[in-house]
C-alpha cells in the first residue's frame, strides 16, 4: 500500500471522530457545577432540589416567550422543592439588565457573559433547558421552546421528579 493510500483512511477516520465528539451534556449525565464559570448574579441553593436550568438570551425571541410560562411553573412547583434558574448568555450586560428590569422574573437569573458554562454544556439550540433530579443528574433536555407542548412535558417531568424519593 502506497503512502497516500495508507494515510487517507486514517485521515477520514480522524475527521469522523473529530466531528462526532460534540461534547454536549445529555440526559443521564451529571450537569457541570454552576460555580467556577464566572456567572454574574446570585446562584440559588440547588443542592437536593429538582432544578430546571434554562439557557436563554435577550436576542432570542422564543427564549423571552418562555418566561411567562416559566414564571407559572416556578410559582406552582417552588413550594415543593423545585428551583428554576435562567442563565442568560448575553455577552453585553445592558440588554440583559433592561429585560430583567422590565420583566422582573419570579425566578433567579444569572448571566454567563463570558459564555464559559454554555461552552461546556454545548446546548443544541436556543433556548435549551435541562431538568436535573435531586442528585444533579440531567433527566431531560428540552431543545427549543414549543409553547404548550414544552410546558406540558416539563410539568409532567417535574411532577414525576418531585415525587421520586431522594
Amino acid at each position: 500500500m502506497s503512502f497516500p493510500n495508507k494515510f487517507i483512511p486514517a485521515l477520514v477516520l480522524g475527521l469522523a471522530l473529530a466531528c462526532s465528539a460534540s461534547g454536549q451534556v445529555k440526559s443521564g449525565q451529571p450537569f457541570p457545577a454552576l460555580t467556577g464559570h464566572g456567572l454574574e448574579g446570585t446562584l440559588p441553593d440547588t443542592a437536593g432540589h429538582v432544578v430546571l436550568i434554562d439557557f436563554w438570551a435577550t436576542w432570542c425571541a422564543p427564549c423571552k416567550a418562555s418566561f411567562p410560562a416559566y414564571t407559572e411553573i416556578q410559582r406552582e412547583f417552588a413550594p415543593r422543592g423545585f428551583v428554576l434558574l435562567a442563565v442568560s448568555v448575553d455577552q453585553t450586560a445592558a440588554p440583559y439588565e433592561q429585560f430583567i428590569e422590565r420583566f422582573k422574573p419570579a425566578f433567579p437569573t444569572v448571566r454567563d457573559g463570558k459564555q464559559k458554562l454554555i461552552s461546556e454544556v454545548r446546548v443544541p439550540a436556543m433556548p435549551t433547558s435541562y431538568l436535573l433530579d435531586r442528585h444533579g443528574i440531567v433527566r431531560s433536555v428540552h431543545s427549543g421552546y414549543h409553547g404548550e407542548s414544552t410546558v406540558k412535558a416539563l410539568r409532567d417531568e417535574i411532577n414525576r421528579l418531585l415525587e421520586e424519593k431522594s
Partner: protein
Amino acid sequence: MKTRLRFALALAALFTLLAGCTTVQPWERATLADATMRPDRDPLHNAMFEHIYFSCEAATGGRGVGGSGCGCN
C-alpha cells in the same frame, strides 16, 4: 518522493480549506439574530426595490405580481 511531496501539498491545501470552515454555535448567534440582519426589515425599502428590480428586468409578475413589465404599475 515526488508523490509524497505532491500529497503533502494537497494535504496542506485541504487543511487550509478546512481551517476556514467553522460552525457558529447557537449561543454565538446574537449578531445574526439582530434585526438589521433581516433583508425584509423595511417594507418601504422592499417595495421600492421590487419596483426598480422589476422595471429593470421587465419581468413583473415573476413573484406573483400582475403587470406588464412597463415599470408603471
